[in-house]
């Protein structure tokens, strides 16, 4: 059992406490979901349970924590390793060794387990977790999902009673993410683990969890059964929103739980915002038969698509399908065959300097862009790069769009993930480009940060700018898409209206589409009821 009594914690050099007088009991063998906005203290709470807080982080802690008889605050993380397995967000930055099996054995080495026993336990976990075909491979050569499995195996090899996962799926595509979650659920019952998992995209986890631990912005927390906690949370997945609107009780945690009688009504014929967009005659961006070969391998085959004025085009597809390659090829960063036209001009004849005047590109990691001391300097650098200048008032007004007006003299890297992402977007768009490419801008963001982003994109569309966005986030995409392209194995599998994309392809179905098939509804706002 995990027992926490009157826990308070304050980070060093901070005046406000992350927690104030927390009391909690978590029963063994249960799975608890940690929910709450970014910065509500989810990671800090998890780190308290294995002693990383305060032993690694520093800070002032008071109160008592008891994890199956051990006290992490007293014993420290090194000694908690045998009781608590901890899995972090990004598997790649956790690898110590280059070979999978060495990586798994690492905690056993630290605990001085005799070699013979060590081999026995590593073999066991490799079989249990179905890693037999990769355990001799290099950690660089395995897929993202496999990497996360290796990290979990390395946490479980010490046979802990508790498994803690801090946003374990935020770096994975939806297929791999679902696989990892099902895998964790299976391991939980197999090994009788107590699981605590922090996650922003609640819809993935709701069907599997026993309890929710909800951390509110005002350092309070609510713990209990999902039916008890979900009604008081302000940011919930679409299915809960719909259920609340339709007075469904108990709240359905997955599409299968949704009572059939509530689904049975006639959809109303109405003018749809997600209807087929006609190809315009003078598109902003016109791509025809684009193919890319990288080191003798064909990555993209004959891609054709258009981006129209004031339109958001969403590109989806599994990891490794060639989505990022497509963006880079469109920018002319890698050689490609086929034609690319920007407002009628042949892009193959344009230099990179000319292209970036019109097209901005946000890479996957916003940290790649940020280096200046203040947000304002970040923007000025881009303007200087393009030999432009703007008056301070114009810049302030520009920053207001991004909700960053109050932060303009702050250091970008100390902002939250969402604010940092917006700073990066502001830095690449301040010179007023016509099209903006974004590569997975919502990774690891909470619902609120995503909402701010979609408002921003809609504002751009009103200004006749276009957005081309690569994402794995189906719900986010369903909310903003004007048109969708699905790319698999380097080919366009689907290109057309969001209505069809989110209804017809099971892997890309939004929750609303799952509940109301054949209605053309893809987001909760679409639902119109007649009884």
């Amino acid at each position, binding site marked *: 059992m995990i027992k926490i009594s009157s826990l308070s914690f304050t980070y060093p050099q901070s005046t406000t406490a992350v927690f104030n007088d927390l009391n909690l009991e978590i029963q063994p063998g249960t799975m608890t979901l940690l929910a709450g906005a970014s910065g509500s203290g989810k990671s800090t709470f998890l780190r308290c349970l294995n002693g990383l807080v305060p032993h690694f982080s520093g800070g002032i802690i008071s109160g008592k924590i008891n994890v199956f008889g051990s006290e992490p605050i007293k014993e420290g993380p090194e000694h908690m390793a045998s009781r608590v397995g901890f899995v972090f967000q990004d598997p790649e*930055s956790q690898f110590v060794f280059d070979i999978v099996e060495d990586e798994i054995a690492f*905690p056993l080495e*630290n605990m*001085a387990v005799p070699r013979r026993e060590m081999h026995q336990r590593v073999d066991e976990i490799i079989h249990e977790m179905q890693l037999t075909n990769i355990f001799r491979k290099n950690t660089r050569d395995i897929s993202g999902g496999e990497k996360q499995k290796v990290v979990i195996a390395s946490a479980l090899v010490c046979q802990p009673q508790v498994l803690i996962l801090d946003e374990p799926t935020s770096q994975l595509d939806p297929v791999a993410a679902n696989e990892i979650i099902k895998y964790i659920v299976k391991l939980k019952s197999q090994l009788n683990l107590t699981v605590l998992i922090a996650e922003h995209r609640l819809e993935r986890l709701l069907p599997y969890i026993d309890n929710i631990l909800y951390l509110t912005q005002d350092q309070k927390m609510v713990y209990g059964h999902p039916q008890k906690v979900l009604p008081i949370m302000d940011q919930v997945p679409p299915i809960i929103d719909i259920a609340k609107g339709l007075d469904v009780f108990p709240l359905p945690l997955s599409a299968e739980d949704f009572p059939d009688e509530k689904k049975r009504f006639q959809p109303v014929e109405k003018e749809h915002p997600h209807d087929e967009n006609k190809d315009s005659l003078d598109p902003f961006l016109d791509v025809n038969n684009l193919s890319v070969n990288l080191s003798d391998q064909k990555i993209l085959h004959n891609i054709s698509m258009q981006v129209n004025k004031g339109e958001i085009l969403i590109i989806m597809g599994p990891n490794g399908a060639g989505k990022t390659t497509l963006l880079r090829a469109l920018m002319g960063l890698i050689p490609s065959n086929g034609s690319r036209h920007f407002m009628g001009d042949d892009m193959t004849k344009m230099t990179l300097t000319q292209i970036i005047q019109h097209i901005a590109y946000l890479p996957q990691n916003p940290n790649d862009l940020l*280096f200046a001391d203040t947000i304002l300097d970040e923007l000025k650098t881009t303007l200087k790069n393009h030999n432009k200048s703007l008056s301070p008032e114009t810049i302030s007004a520009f920053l207001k769009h991004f909700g960053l007006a109050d932060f303009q003299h702050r250091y970008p890297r100390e902002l939250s993930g969402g604010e940092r992402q917006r700073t990066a977007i502001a830095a690449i768009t301040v010179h007023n480009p016509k099209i903006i490419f974004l590569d997975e801008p919502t990774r690891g963001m909470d619902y609120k940060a995503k909402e701010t982003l979609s408002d921003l994109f809609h504002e751009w569309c009103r200004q006749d700018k276009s957005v081309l966005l690569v994402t794995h986030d189906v719900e986010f995409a369903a909310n903003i898409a004007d048109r969708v392209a699905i790319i698999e194995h380097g080919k366009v599998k689907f290109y057309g209206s969001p209505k069809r994309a989110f209804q017809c392809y099971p892997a890309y179905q939004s929750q609303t589409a799952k509940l109301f098939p054949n209605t053309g509804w893809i987001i909760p706002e679409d639902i119109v009821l007649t009884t």
Partner: protein
Amino acid sequence: MKTAVAWMLWLITCMVFILSTRNPIYIMVVLLNLLILGNHLAKKKRNNEWLKHNTFFLLTMIGLSTIINSLFAHSGRNILFTLPKGWPLIGGNITLESLVYGAINGLVISALYLLFNILNLSLQIKQLTRLIPRAFHPIAMMVTIALTFFPSIQQRAQEIKEAQIIRGNPMKKMQDWIPILIPLLVTSLENAIQLSESMTARGYHVQVNKNTNLSLVGLVFGAFSIFSAWILQLYNYPEGILFVLYILGGLIILLTLLHSGKQRTSTQYYKEQWGFSDLTGAVFMSVYLLAYISLLSYNKLPSLFYSPYPNLSFPPLQLLGLLFSVLSIFPLFLSFND
């Protein structure tokens, strides 16, 4: 042959041979053998370009060494042509002797390069880090992590550079590199913190050695003993005293390392399996080395020493010398069974 110890013995033996001879024919024989051995090992790893790349590299190195030596060393009787005396440094006679001397230098450097290249082909990083004494465990850990991280940092640098170029960074002046260096530095630091967090959560901690002071004293004494023996040697002190001091210093250092190594309470997952080929290889290399050193000290191998000066002549050959140079290929015969 798979174990690090056997391969290290091979490396030492070949190095001793290459560094002790100046006979170009012997070194060429060694080079040829190393190329065959390396090509075999590389093909096993499906690296078919190895021979092509390395032959090209070696030829360039030998060529450069030859040209540079002939340009800067002007002594010798066989003058090919003369550069004007007025040219600084390179002005003077270009002689055949100097060309040959430079080529021999190039051959030696090439052979040494190939030795390490082959070692790299045949061993994994973890096998090499295991050779670092347990007392220096944190250092071995650091080397392992650094080698695991290097490729990923390289890739990050490329990504950041691209991101900044798309943002319009012209990448012309030194200043334009700052937007690349700062994100790279900060990201690497953030990654390092995450890695150390993950290592701590998995029970890794740098154990504070209770006897740190004792082992430090041991190391200082050992080093002092060896150093004083060396100083005394310069002043021609009797060999007996020097011998005792050298052995004593070496023993103190060895025991200190063993002792502080035992203080560490971690175990190692990876263990090298000694097979028949490793044992054969290790024994063979030791015998080879001993035989070679004793023959060398009894002056039985005069053909090893060759110099193009004062009279340029064809290098002398001995059957025994040829035999020793051929033996560098020995691991090849052992690798067929692996």
